[in-house]
């Protein structure tokens, strides 16, 4: 049992190392969504600079192998299950406390089809079998980026770890999500670890940091969206509200993806008595 000081010790870190051993063993490495975090850069932002950045990053996705060759790198093989090496160029850890039990959160996340409800630009996740799933992420313009991933380690109510599979993987990534009970009934601490090899490599990430839009921040954003969806049943928004701006009112929502599905509270209720 951890003490509280330990529990709240910040472990939000971000590091990079070229080819050095992963900072955590495979059991703690996992997967989220490098594609989600990177491929969508260009679409959401109005700033031309960020759009350009997005296109650069998104374009790089499709020329990954070429860039890899140019850089004398073997990005395409890193982090896939066919190789001992894993996604290791960048390592991100983010965590958030959510007012819900680990059991309910685990159950919610393990139903992978819930993920697009709060991960921005994630179009769909379709389970292929118990372990494998197919991911589709919106890229720049009308493009999509797709890959297959597998859950290679999980512990009920505690941990889910997954990685992209070789072959169809457009983005090499591996990550994990960890659910821990917070002290004194204060919900759970949810920690995400992501290791990935960014399309476009280090320069793209540095450039992205400059504009405040890099995977660490996007993971934070998506964790916050998860927290909000799970705690309140919706993700607060002002998109589509009234204003006196003539041409440029808040962009209209195409559909309310949150509202159109089963309320989260009902889902979570199955796993927890603490649901409000």
């Amino acid at each position, binding site marked *: 049992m951890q003490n509280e000081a330990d529990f709240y010790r910040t472990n939000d870190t971000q590091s990079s190392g070229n080819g050095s051993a992963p900072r955590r063993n495979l059991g703690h490495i996992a997967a989220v969504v490098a594609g989600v975090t990177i491929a969508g850069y260009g679409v959401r932002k109005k700033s031309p600079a960020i759009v350009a950045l997005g296109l650069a990053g998104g374009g790089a996705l499709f020329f990954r192998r070429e860039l890899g060759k140019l850089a004398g790198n073997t990005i395409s093989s890193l982090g896939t299950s066919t190789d001992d090496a894993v996604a290791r160029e960048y390592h991100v850890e983010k965590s958030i*406390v959510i*007012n819900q039990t680990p059991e309910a959160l685990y159950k919610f996340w393990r139903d992978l089809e819930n993920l697009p409800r709060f991960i921005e630009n994630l179009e769909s996740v379709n389970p292929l079998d118990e372990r494998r799933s197919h991911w589709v992420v919106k890229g720049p313009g009308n493009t999509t980026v797709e890959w297959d991933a597998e859950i290679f380690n999980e512990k009920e109510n505690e941990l889910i770890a997954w990685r992209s599979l070789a072959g169809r993987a457009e983005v090499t990534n591996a990550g994990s999500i960890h659910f821990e009970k917070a002290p004194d009934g*204060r*919900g759970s601490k949810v920690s995400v670890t992501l290791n990935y090899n960014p399309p476009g490599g280090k320069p793209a990430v540095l450039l992205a940091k400059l504009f405040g839009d890099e995977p660490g921040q996007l993971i934070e954003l998506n964790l*916050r969206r998860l*927290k*909000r969806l799970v*705690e*309140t*049943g*919706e*993700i*607060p*928004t*002002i*998109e*589509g*509200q*009234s*204003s*006196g*701006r*003539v041409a440029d*009112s808040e962009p209209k*929502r195409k559909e*309310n993806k*949150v*509202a159109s599905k089963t*309320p989260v509270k009902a889902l979570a209720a199955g796993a927890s008595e603490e649901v*409000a």
Partner: protein
Amino acid sequence: MKALCWYGKYDVRVEDVPEPTILNPRDAVIKVTSTAICGSDLHLYDGYIPTMKKGDILGHEFMGEVVDVGSAITNLKMGDRVVVPFTIACGNCFFCERGLWSACDNSNPDPRIAEKLYGYSGSGLFGYSHMMGGYAGGQAEYVRVPFADVGPIKIPDGVPDEKVLFLSDIFPTGYMAAENCNIQRGDTVAVWGCGPVGQFAIKSAYLLGAERVIAIDDNADRLRLAAEEGKAETINFAKEDVYDRLKAMTGGLGPDSCIDAVGLEAHGHTLDALYDRAKAALYLTTDRLHALRQAIYACRKGGTISIPGVYGGLLDKFPFGAAFGKGLTFRMGQTHVHKYLQPLLDLVIEGHIDPSFVITHRLSLADAAEGYKTFKNKPEECFKVILKPGVNGNGHALSH
């Protein structure tokens, strides 16, 4: 629909804008029957609050009838009369569960600006800049209310709008300011600023058991209201030295608690006030804190400074040594409105207080821009403006 929109410093206009719709399952849409201009709206009008966007609909004090609800709303039905708190709270997060409604962790759609400035973001607010969530406000014919199962309080038939409208902000804000003073039997409470919040703080301090309340302002009409309505003793800071006078009135002890109901646009006639004004004019500082400085000096040892007045940025020449040297307690922050709605509505219904005493101007929503101008430029006659969306504007006040 018609709505009062912000376009820049001293530039607000009533425009035709799209009607609000339900965007989330816990939303409601309210047809506004009464709304008010708040003193803190003047901070927006004066251009003091960053992250406003041209076209933002203002207004955070409003009430009306429910005309639409989202799929998750079961506590409200069409036609219900409700008052809506200006703070938006989810009711589910760590903070809401502890009654810290204005610290709601979830209601600000984009908390990143506030996090950069403050470390963490407070709750979303209606009509009060994008740092505070960018929610469209209620100086409009209709308004969208998020988390409508948590915020709005139903008003029984027969209780007129004017008696309950101020439950949305200024009455709870004045009340919480007094509550934050932790008033003990025999206490003297000094209140800087006799605007509407100050007036409610005065009345609330007595309701909470204060022995004496001393009101401080330089506006004779406001002081008169504080004396006649609030039963406060008064100090005109344009004519008397506040510290000397307070010391004399309390037998050298100083007030037990001091309430700063002025906030970031304090004005005064002493050197430090002129210095603040010069710096603010040059945009070297955002907040002028003359009243707060005076309160800190005047407060008795071990006393409490309660701050309902709004501050937004950095304070210059803040007398921290005095605060430390006397062991003062500071209580402040946006009002946890949700917590006060029912008890204060009960006080109104039971006749302990009639909040409508602050109203001086009743205008049509169509004349809202004129209302801001009058409120800004004629503080001697214009104390509190309420706007009626349902009434045709004719360029004249409905009544005074």
